[in-house]
């Protein structure tokens, strides 16, 4: 059913149609509206046979989901930013135990400095925890990916994180086709657990594993994610057959056929990049885009095939591995490892802490990659003036004070309290 609807509400309605049996979450901006919507739908009975459990923290939220999933329930939670870090130990437990929980991550920066706005730092902080990670480009895809996520999670008995750009998607009101219940039921069969805590047939889950089997447990975790590389496109194709939409998959290409330069990006910024590419194409520049949906498992082969004929690859990402550079760029390098005549990879760090990524800035940086390529990471729209002043200041003054407050003062935020 077509609706003009807030992204968070659209996701809540799609998640509700997946018939979750246990929902537990702790509110944190920008995820809050999703669980508020779900809470309301459980209260009114719109979601049947579901328990909404209020908990005291994110650590408890995911711990309840782990218990519920181990007891055979379809379990869901959602968080963002510091909330994800607070549940980090449980994040590893959910994947290590092989429990098919689905979690929405309303992508937000991680403090300090405290910042409520969007980037992908939170997803990156746990990208190697064993969870699969799917990134939504639009609110339509955000809604659709949850349905595919439950299917994928339960098929492999592995948890899935649906990553949704905080505010940019969660708080945007736009047109979303909310899937019909009958279609979701036909697509997503009832949860049939591979392991279940049942008093009638007692087992234990969560044994201590020593050096004699730990590697093998990890190997099988990794092996399941390689199976997902095949399942994700299959489930996306099946989704398209039933719902008539391209949502999900490992990656999507846009105008790459004859492209000499290909941009790689994840999440909502792909829309702005597509508009920029259309403008550059109109000027005769052969440029295309790969929208990466699956970050874990990382689709090395599919990405290599999509990129290998280009001369330049520009990776635009909303994350920074401090002391290394762009984690997505680093992963893209992996896809091109040992490839003869591989394209040059240029790394762009953009949109940190909610800084808007504009067409004007994209035009500038993509042209620069053609004529004046750089080494390492390029920080889009970096305010070089205040950085230079701050560096000069800290060289001169030993007790130079806190960096964030110094920069805010240079920007004219007197008192720097905001």
């Amino acid at each position, binding site marked *: 059913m077509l609706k003009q609807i807030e992204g968070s509400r659209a996701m809540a309605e799609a998640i509700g149609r997946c018939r979750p049996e246990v929902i537990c979450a702790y509110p944190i901006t920008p995820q809050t509206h999703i669980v508020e919507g779900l809470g309301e739908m459980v209260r009114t009975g719109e979601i049947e046979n579901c328990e909404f459990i209020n908990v005291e923290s994110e650590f408890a939220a995911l711990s309840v989901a782990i218990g519920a999933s181990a007891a055979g329930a379809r379990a869901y939670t959602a968080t963002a930013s510091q909330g994800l870090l607070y549940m980090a130990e449980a994040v590893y437990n959910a994947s290590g135990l092989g429990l098919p929980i689905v979690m929405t991550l309303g992508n937000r920066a991680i403090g300090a400095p405290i910042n*409520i*706005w969007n980037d992908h730092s939170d997803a990156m902080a746990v990208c190697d925890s064993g969870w699969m990670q799917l990134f939504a480009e639009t609110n339509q895809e955000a809604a659709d990916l949850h349905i595919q996520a439950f299917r994928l999670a339960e098929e492999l008995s592995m948890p899935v994180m649906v990553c949704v750009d905080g505010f940019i998607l969660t708080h945007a*009101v*736009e*047109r979303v086709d909310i899937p019909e219940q009958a279609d979701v039921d036909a697509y997503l069969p009832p949860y049939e657990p591979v392991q279940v805590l049942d008093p009638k047939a007692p087992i234990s889950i969560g044994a201590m594993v020593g050096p004699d089997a730990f590697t093998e447990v990890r190997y099988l975790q990794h092996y399941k994610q390689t199976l997902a590389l095949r399942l994700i496109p299959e489930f996306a194709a099946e989704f398209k057959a039933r719902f008539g939409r391209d949502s999900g998959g490992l990656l999507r290409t846009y105008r790459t056929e004859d492209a000499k330069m290909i941009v790689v990006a994840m999440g909502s910024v792909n*829309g*702005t990049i597509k*508009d920029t590419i259309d403008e550059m194409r109109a000027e005769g520049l052969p440029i295309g885009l790969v929208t990466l949906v699956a970050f874990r498992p990382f689709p090395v082969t599919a990405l290599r095939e999509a990129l290998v004929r280009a001369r330049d690859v520009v990776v635009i990402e909303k994350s920074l591995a401090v002391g290394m550079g762009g984690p997505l760029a680093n992963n893209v390098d992996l896809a091109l490892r040992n490839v003869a005549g591989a394209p040059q990879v240029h790394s762009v760090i953009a949109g940190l802490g909610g800084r808007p990524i504009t067409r004007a800035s994209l035009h500038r940086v993509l042209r620069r990659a053609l004529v004046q390529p750089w080494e390492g990471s390029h920080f889009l729209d970096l305010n070089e003036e205040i950085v230079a002043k701050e560096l000069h200041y800290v060289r001169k003054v030993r007790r130079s004070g806190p960096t964030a407050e110094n920069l805010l003062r240079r920007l004219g935020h007197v008192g720097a309290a905001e």
Partner: protein
Amino acid sequence: MFQVRIHGRGGQGVVTAAEFLAVAAYLEHRHAQAFPSFGSERMGAPVVAYCRIDDKEIRLREPILEPDAVIVQDPTLFKVVDVFQGLKPDGYLLINSARGLDELHLPAIAKQLPPGHALTVPASELALKHIGRPLPNAVLLGAFARFTGLIHIDSVADAIREGLPEKIANANITAARAAYDAVPAAGAIAA
């Protein structure tokens, strides 16, 4: 694509106004994208919300930098925020005030726009009269519908009806229609 930026203060329904506008456009089978300025909003603090309207899918996710129309819900913002920033030379400016453009010291701004493209409307007064509270957001959309011709007043009314409880919706619709009747049309424009 037609892009609208709405300025107001926390509690005036700025975000809701952008949503109503998006729903109104959706009801006319157009694509629309409404989004807030993503701050830590507080009562009384300056707030910005945006709405894009187009006949095809909207992919753009940058903030609206060059609006086709600016709606100002609170004229005290002129001293705090550059509400006119990026407004297109052929754009529209709609201000909530019982005073005229001259009294607000805005004739210079108004002159940069085509004749009839800058307008004040006493939205808070109309809201007080019909809703009982000085909430100007829906009222301004009524004026906006007439003034720009971008959306039909009935679509605005339907959007308000979808978004509010019946009694409050009806009061807002009455106020919006009063504003619609109170302002001149600036001529039809294409989205």
